[in-house]
């Protein structure tokens, strides 16, 4: 029985840990867990995710409160506060191309060491990366990513931790769900085992350690 409370979930969050989070532009960032992390006061966090949303949306709130020490992301363009902290030297940022980052997270969840891609081979991002030649093409070796704790936002979870997502809020969530040493999911709805169709399950519960009830999004979207 993996269903638990926010309080129990927060026991996994301590200063200096690496947290991987689902979401893309704030959509799919888990609001209840992020608010819980903020209230617990943990800091010096290493964050891994697609982007850092907007200053007052989702994961962006942790940035605004200066709780992050480093990021591995594809961009921070929508959150100027992150750019400012980076310029001031307060925040270490590693940029990974979006598709490469997604594959690195997936590789972590699948127990792989990494992937080979030629994406970005002409860019400055490739400068210090290991390379390998195969069949006349030069590939970059992109290492897998894992985290101490992964946090995920699902539409529905069953009590075994099987997950489904909501339309474009799926984005990086299924990948992140697989890549945590501990994976904690907040879901808008929690149902009994057997209530999800085995065909429609996107993330198998074997990857999930804990499920809590989401309180839902408490921010305003940029288009609102």
């Amino acid at each position, binding site marked *: 029985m993996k269903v638990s409370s926010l309080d129990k979930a927060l026991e996994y969050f301590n200063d200096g840990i690496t947290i991987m989070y689902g979401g*893309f*532009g*704030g*959509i*799919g960032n888990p609001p209840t867990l992020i608010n819980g992390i903020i209230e617990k006061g943990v800091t010096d966090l290493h964050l891994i995710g*697609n*982007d850092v949303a907007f200053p007052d949306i989702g994961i962006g709130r942790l940035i605004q409160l200066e709780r992050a020490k480093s990021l591995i*992301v*594809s*961009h*921070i*363009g*929508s959150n100027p506060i992150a*750019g400012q902290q*980076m310029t001031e030297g307060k925040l270490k*940022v590693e*940029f*990974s*191309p*979006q*598709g*490469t980052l*997604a*594959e690195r997270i*997936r590789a972590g969840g699948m127990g792989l060491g990494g992937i080979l*891609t*030629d*994406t*970005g*081979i*002409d*860019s*400055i*991002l490739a400068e210090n990366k290991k390379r390998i030649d195969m069949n006349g093409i030069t590939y970059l070796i992109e290492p897998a990513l894992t985290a101490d704790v992964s946090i995920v936002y699902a539409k529905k979870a069953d009590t075994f931790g099987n997950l489904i*997502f*909501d*339309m*474009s*809020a*799926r*984005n*990086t*969530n*299924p*990948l992140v769900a697989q890549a945590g040493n501990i994976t904690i999911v907040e879901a808008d709805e929690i149902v009994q085992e057997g209530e999800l169709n085995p065909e429609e399950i*996107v993330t198998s519960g074997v990857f999930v350690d804990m499920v809590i009830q989401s309180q839902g*999004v408490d921010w305003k*979207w*940029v*288009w*609102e």
Partner: protein
Amino acid sequence: MGMGISVRNQIAKRAAQEIKTGMTVNLGIGIPTLVANYVPDSMKVMFHAENGILGTGPSPVEGTENANLCNAGGYPVTVVPGASFFDSTTAFGMIRKGLIDITILGAFEVSEEGDLANWIIPGKKVPGVGGALELAQKSKKVIVLMNQVNKNGTSKIVKSCSLPLTAKNCVDMIITEMAVFQIQSGKLTLMEVMEPYSFDDIKAGTDADFLLAESLHS
């Protein structure tokens, strides 16, 4: 981009002419977003969003937006029949495998050989790379929509990019308020002159060598 709405729409409209039925198309943020408005409803085009949608449709009617159905720019969309949702790895697998027929995006600089710089201005703007590398490097056809010159009046089409590259030899077409250029086999060719600009305006606004299309010889 510091460009009037009518010019933005003119560029978008011209870009839309490159889209044919059956194509898979990715539109970047800014002017590229407007391109969808000029694709006829009767034309079957699948728009791709990096966050995990194939088959985005028009913006929803106000009041019916759903935060969980947005494009890669974070703005609400709808979906067309035949649309599918998937995670980010599949979204980029489609790009990497070369299944995007056309990608339309903005740029800081494009070289006469089609090198693209559109993600970083060192010391100034480091928003991060997002999905730009994959889209520029892997799409079958890359169309850049941008101003002919920047705020200082300097050409954005250059002999060689001064900014760090997104990808080499990737741009196939440039559409600006002044002109349409094609880049083929490393050669920049002026294809069309936009009203009210003249050839001399374009010449003055292009800091690179270019050829003239057959249709412009006269």
